[in-house]
């Protein structure tokens, strides 16, 4: 059912890449933007090609645009006006909605991400850091030939050792819970990709023109600096032994750092369980842990997905991509102030319903789930005045005044167009505005 030749691979499949480079671009004129896009178009991966490609083939790139970027490429105002309000405003303007206040405010973001000049992102995937650097050099050389195109900033990413499994700078195994698009628990594709039925019906009206929006997705990009020293200090202050410290880490996240979910391993870590994709995500809360004695109600993964204790959960899922940046902090070393963290993309069909709801209601509302004065311990905006309750028998434990383990250093709302849409953008055409009804095929198109 999904048009895998037309959908960019980014949300649906993954090249076997252990490194990547994000280039944030700005275009002085539509001609500059189109010239750049035309030059890289053949390397943009579609879902079918990337899935079929050999593991060693990592030459794919991914391209996405901000609303300002679509305008910069020459999309006209009447079409631009059909995009959703929150995408038009951009993530920086939505700071209050998202809870990006204090140290997380866009005024403190890096690298030009909060400004109106951010037009596009290109992700260069690579098999390792050396290949990434070669790819980046090649891209830089190409950009210099596109008069009027410039790189605002870049970010080098690579998987942290040990590379056998994906994990972040805090040591948590990552990427364990993704929405299923196939199988018995499948969520309708229209929750993530425009032009398909979603969990509520036919999906929202497609922005115009349809050739631009069909098979596209919205991406919420977040760059989170991880304060490894502060995190390790917190574990040391709240756990006398290594085991106790692992438990503290587990209670904050909802999973042991091995990936084993507290819901299935409430007392003791189980690294085998953590590593087993058939078991490490098979759990629920309503019957097994309604009060949070295993997984605290405010733990990160319980906030991100309420499972069977939330209403209409299939309308609130997102496909997550991204990885770590910055060199790791050696075990036992004091924090060296190096910029390190995790850069993530959240793919969905409605930024306001999926991403913004999560941030506003589940991450940063201090009264989430009747908790008093608690925000997400890992990604919430923490300023030292919020707590976290750990239900425990006979008496619960409370962490008072959690420090900030992360800081938002950048973000943006991007639109991830389909391949036909990219060709449309690079050619600068102006087809007639078509019927706004989505979810129905318009038949063959060029």
């Amino acid at each position, binding site marked *: 059912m999904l048009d895998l030749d037309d959908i960019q691979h980014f949300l649906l499949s993954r090249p076997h890449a252990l490194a990547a480079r994000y280039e944030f671009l700005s275009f002085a004129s539509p001609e500059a933007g189109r010239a750049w896009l035309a030059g890289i178009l053949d390397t943009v991966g579609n879902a079918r090609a990337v899935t079929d490609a050999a593991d060693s083939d990592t030459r794919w790139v991914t391209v996405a645009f901000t609303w300002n970027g679509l305008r910069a490429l020459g999309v006209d105002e009447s079409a631009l006006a059909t995009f959703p*309000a*929150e995408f038009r405003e951009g993530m920086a303007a939505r700071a*209050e*909605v998202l809870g990006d206040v204090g140290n997380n405010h866009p005024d403190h973001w890096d690298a030009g991400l909060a400004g109106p000049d951010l037009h596009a992102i290109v992700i260069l995937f690579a098999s390792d850091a050396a290949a990434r650097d070669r790819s980046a050099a090649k891209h830089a050389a190409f950009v210099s030939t596109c008069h009027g195109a410039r790189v605002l900033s870049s970010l080098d990413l690579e998987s942290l050792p040990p590379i056998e499994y994906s994990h972040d700078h805090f040591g948590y195994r990552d990427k364990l819970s993704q929405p299923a698009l196939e199988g018995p628990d499948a969520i309708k594709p229209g929750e993530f990709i425009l032009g398909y039925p979603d969990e*509520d*019906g*036919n*999906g*929202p*009206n497609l922005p115009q023109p349809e050739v631009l929006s069909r098979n596209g997705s919205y991406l919420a990009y977040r760059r989170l600096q991880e304060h490894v020293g502060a995190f390790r200090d917190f574990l040391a202050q709240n756990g006398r032994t290594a085991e106790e410290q692992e438990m503290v880490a587990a209670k904050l996240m909802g999973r042991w750092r091995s990936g084993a979910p507290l819901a299935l391993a409430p007392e003791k870590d189980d690294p085998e369980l953590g590593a087993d994709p058939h078991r490490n995500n098979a759990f629920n809360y309503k019957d097994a842990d309604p009060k949070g004695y295993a997984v605290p109600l405010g733990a990160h993964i319980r906030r991100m997905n309420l499972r069977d204790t939330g*209403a*209409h959960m299939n*309308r609130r899922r997102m496909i997550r991509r991204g990885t770590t940046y910055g060199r790791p902090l050696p075990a036992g070393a004091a924090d060296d102030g190096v910029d390190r963290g995790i850069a993530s993309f959240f793919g969905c069909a409605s930024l*306001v*319903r999926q991403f*913004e*709801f999560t941030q*506003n*209601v589940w991450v940063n*509302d201090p009264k989430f789930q*009747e908790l*008093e004065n608690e925000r997400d311990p890992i990604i919430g905006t923490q300023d030292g005045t919020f707590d976290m309750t750990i239900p425990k028998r006979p008496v619960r434990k409370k962490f008072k005044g959690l420090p900030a383990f992360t800081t938002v250093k950048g973000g943006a709302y991007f639109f991830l167009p389909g391949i036909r849409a990219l060709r449309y953008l690079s050619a600068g055409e102006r087809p007639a505005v078509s019927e706004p009804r989505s979810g129905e095929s318009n038949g063959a198109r060029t």
Partner: protein
Amino acid sequence: MNDLKPIAAALPRKGEKLVKGRYGSMMPVTPANGFTLIAKVKPGSAPTIRAYGQKIEDTIRESPDALAVLRLHYLRWVLFDNDTRFMYIGIFDTDFDKYVEDAVMLFKATGITTIFEQLEGFPADWRDNPAAFAEFCRVHQAPSFMEYAQYPDISAIEVVKAVTMKRALAEALDQLQ
């Protein structure tokens, strides 16, 4: 932590800053937080609206938690001015902005949206456009100039929890006799 004393507030409060929500300006949280929606009824549709009284009674009898996601304390639905106008009074615990999509899905599931469709000015694309639904509510909200709460800032969930605990404790004490 509030001291459980009653509160009254003259509204709007001076110098109150409007906070931006996901769908536009949020209505500030007040002592008897919620809606007073007032709208004209399409001519002749009052009987359709009135029939929902029994429908909702039946729905809640069958599924008591059907409206739980709305975080309601109380609802009052009124037809007045000779059945030409409809008033929806709801007292609930959360900013409506946070749960607009859940409310729209819930109304669809219970058929309550049929009532809204009888109101003049209700958006035709409400099914796919929670923003338009939220805007309709904002435009038709008749804001209070005074609200009183006997037990301010206590959610319906907390009330039920507290009474449940009190009953359990009372039973345990009785069994100790």
